[in-house]
């Protein structure tokens, strides 16, 4: 069974670049400000989620194992 992830988008630095929506569309979607929001932390593989976090140009995405270790940044 896969571990559960805690995925958050920091709206004080998200600029709506939307690369995360392209990389992991099952996890991220636009809110009404056209910033990214997490719709389902289990909507894509862990690999895709981490790729989205790594690719964020403002480092707005944080990924942790639920109740544990921080994976990104």
């Amino acid at each position: 069974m896969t571990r559960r992830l805690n995925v958050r988008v920091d709206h004080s630095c998200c600029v709506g670049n939307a690369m995360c929506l392209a990389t992991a569309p099952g996890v991220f979607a636009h809110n009404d400000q056209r910033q990214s929001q997490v719709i389902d932390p289990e909507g894509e593989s862990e690999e895709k989620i981490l790729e989205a976090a790594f690719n964020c140009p403002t480092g707005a995405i944080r990924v942790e194992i639920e109740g544990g270790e921080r994976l990104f940044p």
Partner: protein
Amino acid sequence: MTVADLDELFAPEVVADPYTYFARLREIDPVYWNERFQLWVITGYEEVVWLLRHHELFSSAIMRNSTSPPYPPVDPEDLPLFDEVREFRADQLVEQDRPEHLHQRTVVHKYFTPTAMESWRPFVRDAVAELLDELEPLGRMDVLTDLAAPLPVRVIAQMMDVPWEDRDHLRELADSILYMNRGEPYRLRPLTEGMRGIVDYAAPLVEERLDRPGDDFISILAQGEKAGIFSRHQVLVNTGLLLFAGHETTMNLICNGLLAFIRHPDQWDLLAADPGGMVRLATEECLRYDPPVKSTQRIAAEDVRLSGQAIHKGDRIRWIMAAANRDPSVFPDPDRFDIGRQPNPHISFGSGIHYCLGVALARMEGQEVFRALAERFGRIELATDEVEYQPSIQFRSLKSLPVSWARRSR
């Protein structure tokens, strides 16, 4: 500054001080119709961000869609060269709309992520140190030609993975491409020479790296061609884009930022007291206060209402980051240069899908320069009575920035 005619977007007074002029426009209407030049001028923060995040309503394909002539005017016999400029620029990533933009950006995006760029910091720090080691004993420099221009070319040459001895040639090409943003009536000639020069220079490199890719930027583009995402022309003009976009903007960040520090010695002292601790916030404030790029364009792709104004499909739009960055509804005391400012959600890198690809590199180059200057020098003085800017609506580019300093007693 007084501009009697609010439509005089290109007046010398506006070039010298865009802030007063655009603040007046913003007070009148953050979505202002300029009758003379037939375009919308967007100066409100909220309006600019909304526009940038609705890319489906506002096209970035300016060169393909706009028929406006070069401004300031060029020698009439050079006008045919403008078609060549259009063709070159129209194929660059910044001029693409979705879906092509997403496919192309995905190819190059990974190269520029904050984490990937952080690995370049030692190279940038060494390059800054090397330049300053030579300059420091002289006691004076033109920041533009001696520091701000050579630094980004060194970094870009390394990113393109070209031989060290080609740097001077690349610097010449970069200098020619800078005519993109100049006012001289003859400028299309050096500009097109530079464009052809970069295409001729990059062509054999692309050929070579299609088959034997490295981890450099040209190889990344070449692999994009192999995957059917870029045409060869797009690979070549995007190599030119890296050279131009990484050069002009970084130059302006360094020059405009240092000028702000010279004019606000109290802020310089704050940075100098703790360069390592303050430089990140300080660089953000330099970016906000006097941004490298003043404004950029869009063309309405649909009829759309913005702040009560009816924008029609096909209308030209200029959004002014220099004005949005000083919108008092977002930035308290916006005309104050305050390196401790936090939060500082300036839009000097834009917003939305076209958010500056080179953001992490630009930030790092700015940080490393301001930090090194603050660590090495005491007070830096302006060695001229007045400074002059290139007559560009888009870039905030000083023509030169002569300074002098006394060695700091340590």
